[in-house]
């Protein structure tokens, strides 16, 4: 999962200080693994370099923690593309997908589109696995089934999330 895209997404709701960004990120997505300050600032400087964010005034007192960052137009485009690009179907992806859904909701984008894209990608993988399974021997079948069940679990989570989007949106924006 890309922290850069996540920070960009958070900046889309308004300019923030670096410290602010870390706090919001941890609150929403960090859970038991908070971001290190260094990671935040190195990421921000990379984004700055690529022209995806810009500095927007420095408050009195100086120091890197007093800089405010804002997203650029290029940054917005980048976030949009990232959001609808499905994650490569793999197990334990929900944290990335979750981040995308929350950010899409926060930025008033169509979160369902995110889920649709992901579902589509998942099903494509599952089709491949199903085809392999039907052609293969018992070992292949068992291996494929294992993967299929995991992917199915993702999709179940996805459908559950889809069903609760309205509630989630209230919580995220409210």
């Amino acid at each position, binding site marked *: 999962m890309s922290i850069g895209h996540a920070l960009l997404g958070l900046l889309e709701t308004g300019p923030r200080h670096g410290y602010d960004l870390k706090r919001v990120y941890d609150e929403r997505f960090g859970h038991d693994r908070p971001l290190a300050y260094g990671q935040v600032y190195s990421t921000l400087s990379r984004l700055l370099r690529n022209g995806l964010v810009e500095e927007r005034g420095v408050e009195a007192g100086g120091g890197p923690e007093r800089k405010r960052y804002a997203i650029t137009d290029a940054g917005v485009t980048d976030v949009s593309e990232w959001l*609808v690009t499905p994650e490569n179907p793999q197990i334990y992806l929900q944290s990335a997908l979750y981040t995308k859904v929350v950010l899409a909701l926060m930025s008033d984008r169509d979160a369902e589109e995110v889920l649709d894209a992901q579902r589509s990608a998942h099903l494509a993988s*599952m089709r491949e696995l199903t085809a392999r399974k039907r052609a293969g021997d018992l070992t292949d079948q068992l291996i494929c089934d294992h993967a299929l069940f995991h992917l199915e679990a993702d999709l179940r989570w996805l459908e559950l999330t889809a069903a609760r989007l309205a509630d989630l949106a209230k919580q995220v924006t409210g």
Partner: protein
Amino acid sequence: MSEVLLSGTNLGKAFGRTAALDGASMLVHDNEIVAILGPSGSGKSTLLHCLAGIVAPDSGTVAFRGRELGRMTDKERSALRRTEFGFVFQFGQLVPELSCVENVALPLRLGGMRRKDAEVKAKEWMDRIEVGHLLDKRPGEVSGGQSQRVAVARALVTGPKVVFADEPTGALDSFNGEQVMRLLVDTARDTGASIVLVTHEARVAAYSDREVVVRDGKTRQVALAH
């Protein structure tokens, strides 16, 4: 892409005040398996019923090979369903008092085939669907997976162009579900039939060529190909 076999355009259908379908559209091509996905109550089954001509939509049109179903008489629609379509539902579709082979032969006999011929053909199909040993059993005497396979045989016995399957594995465990799907898909491929598959299970949907997602009575346009 191959020829369009069945099309539903802008379908709307309400039951009382609840709108089950609200502008749903989809195409089914020749020899294609389409899964209709969506949460409970999204209108999946209603979409299938509209496409199959079981239910007349309040608005929009359904066409099979360019013929609008809404312009046919009820008799013509029944005949169409009997000859060109096949159906597999979740459960309880076999006539309990008829034996399995009689159940499978039923659509043939209604098409005017003689009893002997119909039962011979039904037996062939039951062998193919791996339930040839159940010929004279009654539906009440066979397991859920077996009766579902008998239902598949009945759906395919007339050589339909489209098989409509509404949660065909809904009442089965994964193993039996997989078997039913495998048989359904394999035989459909062999005979060149298309399948419209309503399911809420991803693993079942994975047997399809593509999926259509229904939410709140609308078909969702999936933005990306991969």
